[in-house]
């Protein structure tokens, strides 16, 4: 089994295999996303309380879900890299960070654009918003450590540790709306009984979430391939590959 893991976790094997996957993820992300946007913007009914402004939900919530999901991918990959010294895992973590940061940013700004008309404020220092902002800082911290430390292994160790320690923020973000008095809406989908959202709004929401997932898959594969090329730039498989280009 160890040989199997070593084979599948070699950067070269990953580089060759991932090429085929990227177009599938990209095209399905586009199709699902376009359909989800169509349903969300033109088919889903108007909300009786919030009018049309609630339509921000179709990008705000998927972006927020991605910000959390990508962070977990990053932290788990970093842990795998730290514990088992699998370099591909460190590459996936480093590749994920800027993508996760951009989704966190998107969740925050779309949240602000929703909060201003609905709550009267672009920002409040409540638990949900503050912990999501901290998530953005954690992503930046990861990227800063990768940039600042010259030796790749040391950089991966330092940034990986930050990613792992920062996992504590994830349940804080999720449960913040239960644990503290918060302006932010409570959980309607990610709880253990059936969602309290109308199906005509739920379907486009879930479709956009799937589209964002597929999009992340395509982008992280491209970025991880770049990491593989760069980190293995002095190894034979890269030299031969580049030589053939």
């Amino acid at each position: 089994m160890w040989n199997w893991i070593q084979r599948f976790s070699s950067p070269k094997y990953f580089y060759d295999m991932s090429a085929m996957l990227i177009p599938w993820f990209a095209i399905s992300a586009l199709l699902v996303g376009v359909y989800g946007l169509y349903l969300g913007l033109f088919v889903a009914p108007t909300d009786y309380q919030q009018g049309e402004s609630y339509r921000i939900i179709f990008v705000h919530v998927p972006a927020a879900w991605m910000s959390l999901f990508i962070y977990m991918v990053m932290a788990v990959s970093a842990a795998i890299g730290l514990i088992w010294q699998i370099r591909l895992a460190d590459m996936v973590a480093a590749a994920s960070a800027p993508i996760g940061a951009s989704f966190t940013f998107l969740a925050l700004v779309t949240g602000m654009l929703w909060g201003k008309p609905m709550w009267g404020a672009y920002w409040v220092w409540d638990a949900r918003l503050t912990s999501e902002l901290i998530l953005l800082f954690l992503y930046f911290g990861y990227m800063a450590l990768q940039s600042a430390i010259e030796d790749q292994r040391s950089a991966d160790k330092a940034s990986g540790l930050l990613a792992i320690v920062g996992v504590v923020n994830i349940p804080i973000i999720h449960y913040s709306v239960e644990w503290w008095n918060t302006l932010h809406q409570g959980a309607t989908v990610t709880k253990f009984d059936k969602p309290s959202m109308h199906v005509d709004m739920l379907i486009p929401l879930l479709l956009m979430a799937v589209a964002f997932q597929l999009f992340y898959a395509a982008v992280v594969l491209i970025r991880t391939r770049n990491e593989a090329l760069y980190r293995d730039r002095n190894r034979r498989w890269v030299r031969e590959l580049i030589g053939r280009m």
Partner: protein
Amino acid sequence: MGGYAFFVWTSYALTFVVVIANIVSPIVQRKKVISRIKRTIRREQLQKQDNV
């Protein structure tokens, strides 16, 4: 958008920007990595010629 047009469309515009940035950035990154490696290969070839 019932008076909320600015807020809704700005949100979608920012989403579009983030999506485009996430497409363009890794493509540019790939080009940079490949050209950097090509330059290193070229430099090493030249050094080998000098040493011969």
